[in-house]
């Protein structure tokens, strides 16, 4: 590590690591570096926890080639906010693993955190959370997407998400009949 330091001119902004530093440095697909609390990263991401435990964290920036800088910034932001604001035990036990446990509603700050994102940024963050094995962040982001579908007809959902209908005319008619019950107003 000490040897590499001289070469890393381009990364001069980054602090030199002490042996027992309490952050890890992550590198996005487009080469940007982000610092994140080691404790939060290990607690919130199974993938990062594995990398930290396995010693495959690179002090010059662990390469996360699948994640762009905007998404990684959000991941790091989420981890740091999480580290600061939440009593961890409650949240960890609440994270759902695909329907085995009930989903715990997002906290106020989590709601705000995803509400400010554009669709594109939100989907990027879902993919990043999925890639990093961040169950809670995946739930919170997926929950946000599910909220965008609530109370909408298939047409409206297609419009919101810009989805192409690939049903035939006949199938659409069938679906319309099948869903007739759902279209009555209360």
């Amino acid at each position, binding site marked *: 590590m000490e040897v590499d330091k001289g070469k890393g001119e381009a990364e001069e902004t980054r602090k030199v690591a002490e042996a027992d530093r309490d952050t890890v440095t992550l590198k996005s697909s487009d080469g940007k570096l982000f610092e994140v609390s080691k404790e939060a990263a290990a607690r919130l991401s199974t993938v990062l926890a594995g990398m930290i435990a396995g010693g495959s964290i690179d002090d010059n920036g662990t390469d996360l080639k699948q994640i762009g800088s905007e998404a990684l910034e959000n991941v790091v932001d989420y981890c740091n906010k999480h580290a600061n604001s939440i009593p961890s035990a409650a949240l960890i036990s609440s994270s759902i693993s695909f329907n085995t446990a009930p989903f715990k509603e997002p906290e106020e700050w989590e709601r705000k955190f995803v509400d400010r994102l554009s669709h594109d940024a939100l989907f990027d963050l*879902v993919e990043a959370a999925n890639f990093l094995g961040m169950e809670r962040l995946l739930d919170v982001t*997926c929950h946000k997407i*599910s909220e965008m*579908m*609530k109370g909408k007809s298939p047409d409206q959902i297609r419009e919101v998400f*810009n989805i192409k209908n690939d049903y035939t005319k006949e199938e659409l008619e069938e*679906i319309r009949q099948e*869903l007739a019950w*759902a279209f009555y107003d209360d």
Partner: protein
Amino acid sequence: MEKEQQQQQPGGDDGGAAAEADIERLPADILAHVLSLLPSFRDLSMAGGVSRRWRRAVERSLASRRRLSFAGQRTGDDTAARFVHAAVNLRDLDISRSCWGCIITDEGLIKISSADCIGKLTSISLWGLAGITDKGVVQLVSRAYSLQHLNIGGTFITDESLNAVANSCTNLKSIILWSCRHVTEAGLVALVNKCRRLECINVGGMRVPPESFVSLLSISPALQIRSIPQILTAGVQVSS
């Protein structure tokens, strides 16, 4: 952020606005996960109408469910049946009457009865489905071999349904027959005779003479016979 990466344009024939945020790039299991977070079946049904891929995702999200409840939700026969068919790991099915009135009929029960999960269900509630008769109930319970708890209160079933329960559901532990006015003592006796694991039976509001409960107890002395309506969970108020 600068838009460096050129998103591959799906289809690409609608030249106008460049590729918007594209939910379709999310993997199928993630889309299914999103859908599993929808709280209402109405929303889930609507999502299934979006595209073929979405319909598969709806089915996938259902496949992981253990419990399905239509209580308080409007549902049609076809939609309910399709959900139950997709929920291959289901254990607990609640299609009790919703506050919107009953839309499930015998036809729905018959369609539901052919679902893979029926033989593994341990709990079924048909509470208050005024539109169902023996025809649908017999079909359904005849395949529900693993059933332990059945709530069939507030329906118009007769002894015919109870006989079917007695013959097929030998693991039955509890049954709610609240206000089943067409069930007679003979039906109850058949049930208690065949279902030797029956622990609890709710007979509130039935038209069976109290003496007949004595004969039930002579068959199964430990049987708890209750008459207090245990239907508060169904959201129905009963003044006693």
